[in-house]
C-alpha cells in the first residue's frame, strides 16, 4: 500500500494519463450515451439553444431502418466465418513455424507483413487481384483482362468468376471479403499463438514422445489444451474485431459498400454508423454504436462462458 502522505504523488504521476483518458475516452463514451437518447439531435440546432426530447427514438430508428437487419446479417456472416477459419489457420501456421528452424525468422516476417501494411492499401491490392477489368461493348461485353485470381482459375481450366465487379453475386463478394479478412487477421493471431507455443515447456513434448503419441494427438491433446488461454484470447478479440468490420469492405469495394450495381449491399453495422454520421444523424449513429456495443458484450460474455469450460488452468 502506498503511504497516504505519498498518495498525492501517485495521483500526480497518474494525472497526465487520467486527464487524456477523461477527455478522449470517458467523455466521448458518456456523450455517446447521452446523444443516443437525444431524439433528432442536430449540432447546429444545439448551438442555437434548441432543446431536444429524450427517448428511445434513435434506437427504434436504427432497428426499423431497412438496412439494419442486412447489415447485421453481413456482420454476423463475416464474424462467424472468419474467426474460426483464421484461428485454425493461425494455429497450424504457428505450430509449423515453431517446428522449423531454418527460415523461421524470414517466414515469420512474411506472415507478419499484413499487420504492418495499411488495410486500405491491402484492400486495393485484393481489388486488383479479384478484378475483371476492361469490359468493352454493352450488348455483348468482351472482357479483356482479369485479375490474377481469375487467371489462376482459368489456368486450371475453370471459368472466370465475377468476384467484385458490376453484376457479381453476393456470395462471391462475401467470399472475397472472407479471404481478405482471414488473411488480414492471421498475423496478429500467429504472433500471439507463436508466443504461447514458445512458452510451453519442451519437456511435455519429450514426455509425449516417450508416451508414443502420434503427431495429431500431440496437437489436439497437448498443444491445443496448453495453448487454450491464448486461443481463447485470440477468438474473443477476433469476434470483437469482426463485429467492427468496415475497412476491409471499403478497401475492396470502396465507399459504396458493395459492387457498383448494388451499393450498400455489403454494409455492416459500423458502416451504418458512418452513414448516419455523414447524414448528420449523430443521435442515430450513437444509438447504433450502443447497439453494437451490446451485441459485442453479449457475444464476449458467451465466449468467456464457453472458454471457462474449455480453457485449462
Amino acid at each position, binding site marked *: 500500500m502506498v503511504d497516504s502522505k505519498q498518495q498525492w504523488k501517485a495521483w500526480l504521476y497518474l494525472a497526465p494519463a487520467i486527464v487524456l483518458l477523461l477527455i478522449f475516452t470517458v467523455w466521448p463514451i458518456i456523450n455517446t450515451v447521452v446523444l443516443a437518447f437525444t431524439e433528432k439531435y442536430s449540432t447546429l440546432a444545439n448551438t442555437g439553444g434548441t432543446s431536444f426530447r429524450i427517448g428511445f427514438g434513435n434506437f427504434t430508428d436504427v432497428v426499423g431502418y431497412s438496412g439494419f437487419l442486412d447489415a447485421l446479417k453481413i456482420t454476423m456472416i463475416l464474424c462467424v466465418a472468419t474467426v474460426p477459419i483464421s484461428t485454425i489457420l493461425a494455429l497450424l501456421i504457428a505450430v509449423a513455424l515453431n517446428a522449423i528452424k531454418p527460415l523461421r525468422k524470414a517466414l515469420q516476417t512474411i506472415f507478419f507483413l499484413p499487420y504492418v501494411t495499411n488495410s486500405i492499401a491491402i484492400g486495393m491490392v485484393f481489388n486488383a487481384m479479384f478484378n475483371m477489368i476492361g469490359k468493352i461493348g454493352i450488348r455483348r461485353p468482351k472482357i479483356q483482362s482479369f485479375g490474377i485470381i481469375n487467371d489462376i482459375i482459368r489456368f486450371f481450366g475453370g471459368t472466370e468468376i465475377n468476384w467484385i465487379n458490376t453484376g457479381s453475386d453476393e456470395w462471391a463478394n462475401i467470399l472475397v471479403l472472407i479471404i481478405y479478412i482471414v488473411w488480414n487477421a492471421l498475423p496478429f493471431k500467429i504472433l500471439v499463438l507463436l508466443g504461447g507455443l514458445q512458452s510451453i515447456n519442451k519437456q511435455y513434448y519429450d514426455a509425449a514422445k516417450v508416451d*508414443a503419441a502420434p503427431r495429431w494427438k500431440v496437437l489436439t*491433446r497437448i498443444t491445443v489444451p496448453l495453448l487454450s488461454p491464448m486461443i481463447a484470447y485470440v477468438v474473443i478479440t477476433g469476434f470483437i474485431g469482426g463485429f467492427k468490420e468496415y475497412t476491409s469492405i471499403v478497401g475492396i469495394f470502396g465507399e459504396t459498400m458493395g459492387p457498383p450495381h448494388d451499393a450498400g449491399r455489403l454494409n455492416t453495422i459500423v458502416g451504418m454508423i458512418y452513414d448516419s454520421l455523414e447524414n448528420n444523424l449523430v443521435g442515430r449513429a450513437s444509438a447504433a454504436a450502443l447497439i453494437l456495443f451490446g451485441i459485442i458484450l453479449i457475444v464476449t460474455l458467451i465466449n468467456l462462458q464457453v472458454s471457462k469450460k474449455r480453457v485449462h*488452468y
Partner: protein
Amino acid sequence: MKIVLENLTKVFPSRNKKSNDEVIAVNNFNFEIPDGKLIGLLGPSGCGKSTTLYMISGLQKPTGGKIFFGDEDVTELSTERRGIGLVFQNYALYPHMTVKQNILFPLQNLKGEEKMTKDQMLERAYEAARLVQIDELMDRKPSELSGGQQQRVAIARALAKMPRVLLLDEPLSNLDARLRLQTREEIRRIQKETGITTVFVTHDQEEAMSISDMIVVMKLGVVQQIGEPQNVYDSPANLFVAKFLGTPPINVFRGRVQGGKLFIGEAEVMDVQGVKDQAVTVGIRPEGFVLDENGPLSCKLSNVEVMGRDVSIVSTHEESLNPIIRSIINADHKVNLASETVRYTLKPHKVFLFHAETEDRIYFGKTEEA
C-alpha cells in the same frame, strides 16, 4: 530386458561456429546392464549421466556407438518405438489432464497387438496407480498434488504401459529430505516388484549407493568405475571415485612411498609392500582411523563433534590436501580434549594409494582389486 551400450559417444558441437571446442558429453561408454537390475548413473553435474540416459531413451541421438535392448539394435529407433518409460526430473505431467488421464495417455497410444480396450486401460491405470499408492488421487490435477505425489504419478505413467526399460532422471531431486528417503525405498520396491530393468541418474552418491544394484561413476563424459556400490566404495579405481563416494568424504594427504613404507610427512604410517618408491596421494576413509596414543600419524586436534553412536574428530595436518581431517571413531573411545594433538594408526583396507599425477589407484598388499 538387458541394455547394452557399445562405444556410446555424444558430442555437442560448439555454439560458436568459428571455434572448435566441441563438448564431448559422453565418451566411449561400454556397459551391459543386466536384465532386471537397478542401475544408478552417478557423477557431478556435467559428467554426461543425463545425456547417457536420454540417449537410452532416444530423445537424444548418439554421435557414435550403438544401443541394444536385448538383442535388438535400437540406436536408430525413435523414442516412440523403443517402449521405454521415462520419469523426468520435473515430472512433466500434463497439467491440463487429471492423474487418471495422465496415466491413461500412454496406454491410449498403444498400437497394433498392444492396443487395449477402454476397460483394460482403466484396469491397467489403476493397477499402476495402486503400485505407487495414488489410486485415491485419480481425479486430481497435477497442480493439486504435492511434489511426492506428482513424482508417483510420473512413475505410474511410466510404468502403466509395461515398458521394456524404466529410466529416471534425478527422480528425487525435487523432494524434501524425508520424502526422499521414503521415495527411494519405494523406487527400490517398485523396481523389485515389476522386475523392469531400471536406470536412474543422480548426483547424490548416498542415493545411488543405497538403492542400486550397480553404480556407474562418471566424470566429464568418461566412465570411471562400474560395480556394486559396496565394491566401488571399498575399492575405488581412482582418486575421483574415492572422493566422490562416501560421507563424510575421504581424507586426502600428500605422501610418499619409500622402501615399502608409506610416509605422510616424516611419519612412517603403514607398510605398503610391493609399491615402488614414489610420491603418492593417500586417501583415508574417515572410518579408517584408529585412536592410538602411540600411533604414527599425529594431527592437530581442532574439535570433536558428538554424533551419539560415533564421534567425529576434526583435526588438521600440514600434509593434508583438505583443510580439515575428519575421522569417525566409536563413541566408546574417550578423546582427551585438552590435548593439542591426536594420534592415529590406520586400518590398511581403508587406506588407498593413488598415483600423484594420474590419480590412478596403486594397489598394495592384501587389498587386491576386487
